[in-house]
């Protein structure tokens, strides 16, 4: 009986905090409502009013249901924090897909959820139909989703609702972030948003000026700048038109976007440290070292491989088509400066392999990027070197091995093990996606490319992701994006919590 009551309390806590997260994200729908109003798009405006109201109603009901737990001052445990983070992502994916369904640009509910999850996880793959004719309101919503997804919904809620969110750190960690910029987690959440908003202003202005210089009209240039910034900074890869970054036909526009997505793929801790005047962090940080080495090697190998196939004739083409795409893959952005099918038809197996590896490695931990993360690759690599050194040294010598990530840290077996476990989880998800793709008849290289893209939250496509692909693959890709973004543990906690509840319920039924 006591355990049943305990579980009931747990559900109330989860409901209460998830309700607040839903309310905060739902309130963001006022932005596309105002946008639709400004551009006189009446149908999208009504779509967003309906969606917003449904989300608000659900959020309020969840808070009311869980309010008793707050009255009894029940503490949030780690499991609650992880379940709140992972559950709120699922609830919000369903709620935020309503405007897509009402717009008529999604062929099914699964397609709409796919696009929302793709946005939240900053993947950038899209199944939305006829992108070139969607409303400015819906385009605004797509890019808001990817922007807040990059920072995190929990981070957003903590920024606005400091007082109501007790046990905030547990939810914050549950969303795949663990960095503490200032001593308290609410302050850290605010710093993350402060960093993002300052870059938003600067990046949008720069892209706006470049947009007008390449021939876009001022209002249109502003919207394109805002959308491309949101996508670049969050390493998302959405764009307002079907041609993605190719729509602009401009090296300058691509270069500015590339600078923004490289910055977006860096750890918020590094941004904060640099702002605090600790410039040496750029040179010393293990993640930056790891990113520089892996991106340089990937670019050089891809350039060499494509030069051998004589795909591009000069250095400018090499920069715009090879380096741009490799860095876009490595930072898990997913902007494509060539057609999806050109990867399959022109880049060859070697080029595809380089892209797959780059997509899986990904950007930095506690950034907007996905993938294994440079930090983990660096730790595992240093761990390997440490083990080799230990073998070569005498048994009596006791060396302490360290790595630098914002501060000097001891490299021990626990750190290496936890990094290796997450990398293994990514590889298993990637392998499952590849096997599923080949099961449905796609070539192995195409299956691997697309699977790496969804697992690493990249968004580049080789042509597999279309609305006509099998529903099982769409569902798996949704799960893979979700797992990749939350870095597995929160989702495992949610599954464990759910299965635990089912098990106890079954036991009670059998007892009676």
């Amino acid at each position: 009986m006591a355990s049943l009551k305990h579980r009931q309390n747990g559900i109330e806590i989860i409901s209460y905090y998830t309700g607040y997260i839903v309310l905060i994200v739902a309130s963001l729908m006022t932005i596309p409502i105002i946008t639709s109003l400004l551009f006189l798009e009446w149908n999208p405006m009504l779509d967003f009013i309906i969606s917003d109201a449904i989300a608000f109603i659900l959020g309020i009901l969840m808070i009311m249901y869980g309010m008793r737990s707050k009255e009894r001052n029940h503490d949030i445990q780690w499991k609650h924090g992880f379940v709140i983070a992972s559950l709120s992502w699922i609830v919000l994916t369903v709620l935020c897909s309503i405007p897509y369904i009402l717009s008529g640009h999604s062929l099914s509910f699964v397609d709409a959820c796919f696009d929302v999850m793709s946005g939240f996880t900053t993947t950038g793959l899209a199944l939305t139909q006829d992108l070139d004719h969607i409303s400015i309101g819906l385009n605004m919503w797509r890019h808001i989703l990817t922007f807040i997804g990059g920072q995190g919904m929990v981070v957003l809620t903590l920024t606005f609702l400091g007082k109501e969110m007790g046990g905030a750190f547990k939810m914050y960690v549950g969303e795949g972030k663990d960095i503490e910029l200032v001593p308290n987690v609410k302050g850290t959440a605010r710093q993350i948003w402060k960093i993002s908003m300052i870059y938003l202003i600067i990046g949008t202005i720069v892209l706006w000026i470049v947009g007008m210089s390449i021939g876009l009209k001022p209002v249109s240039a502003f919207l394109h700048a805002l959308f491309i910034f949101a996508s670049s900074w969050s390493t998302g890869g959405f764009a307002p038109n079907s041609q993605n970054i190719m729509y602009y036909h401009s090296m300058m526009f691509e270069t500015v976007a590339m600078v923004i997505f490289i910055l977006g793929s860096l750890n918020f801790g590094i941004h904060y440290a640099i702002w605090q005047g600790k410039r040496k962090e750029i040179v010393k940080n293990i993640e930056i070292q790891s990113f520089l080495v892996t991106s340089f090697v990937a670019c050089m190998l891809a350039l060499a491989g494509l030069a051998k196939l004589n795909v591009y004739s000069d250095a400018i083409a090499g920069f715009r088509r090879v380096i741009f795409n490799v860095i876009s893959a490595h930072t898990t952005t997913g902007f494509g400066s060539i057609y999806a099918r050109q990867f399959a038809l022109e880049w060859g197996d070697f080029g595809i392999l380089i892209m797959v590896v780059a997509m899986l490695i990904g950007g930095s931990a506690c950034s907007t990027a996905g993938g294994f993360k440079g930090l983990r690759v660096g730790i595992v690599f240093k761990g390997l070197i440490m083990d080799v050194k230990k073998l070569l040294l005498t048994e009596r010598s006791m060396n302490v091995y360290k790595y630098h990530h914002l501060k000097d840290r001891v490299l021990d077996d626990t750190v290496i093990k936890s990094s290796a476990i997450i990398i293994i989880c990514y590889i298993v998800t990637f392998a499952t996606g590849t096997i599923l793709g080949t099961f449905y008849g796609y070539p192995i290289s195409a299956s691997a490319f697309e699977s790496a893209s969804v697992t690493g939250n990249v968004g580049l496509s080789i042509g597999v992701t279309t609305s006509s692909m099998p529903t099982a693959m769409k569902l798996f890709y949704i799960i893979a994006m979700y797992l990749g973004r939350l870095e597995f543990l929160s989702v495992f906690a949610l599954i464990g919590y759910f299965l635990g509840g089912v098990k106890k319920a079954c036991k009670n039924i059998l007892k009676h």
Partner: protein
Amino acid sequence: MQKYIKTLIWVLLFTSTLTFKVNAQSFTDINELIEKAKEYNGEEVTIQGEVIGESMKRGDYSWININDGTNAIGIWLDSDIAEEILFYGNYKCKGDTVKITGIFNRACKEHGGEADLHSSSFEIVKNGYEVKEQISPVKIIIAAILTIFTLVLMLILVKVIKKRRL
């Protein structure tokens, strides 16, 4: 009987004429250009599709983007010709349908390795138009009811929170 045979011959003739017209498509799909890029590279091709977005003027020449339903591609053409386009496809407009003949480049040397088409001939096949929004009254009623319900629930929530704090 003769009458039936005559009718049958006429029907056959008519349908075969129709078939000939469909087969004789005088333009290439954009997707086919991408799929067979090496084959079409440097060749003169004709495409037909809707102009989308807006034109981007770069001096004497401009970029426009064409979507034919299979894919979209950038067209490099004379700025004076681009000015002839009245409607660009977006949420509020169906863009002009244009037929463009030009040289297809798989990886254009002039434009940083982009797959594009340099126009040599341009024709507006069908004028675009403004799309009138059809607003469903049911949608308005649902939006109004849900908004009222949300406001009531919000008031209740605020009251409960205030009561709890007292």
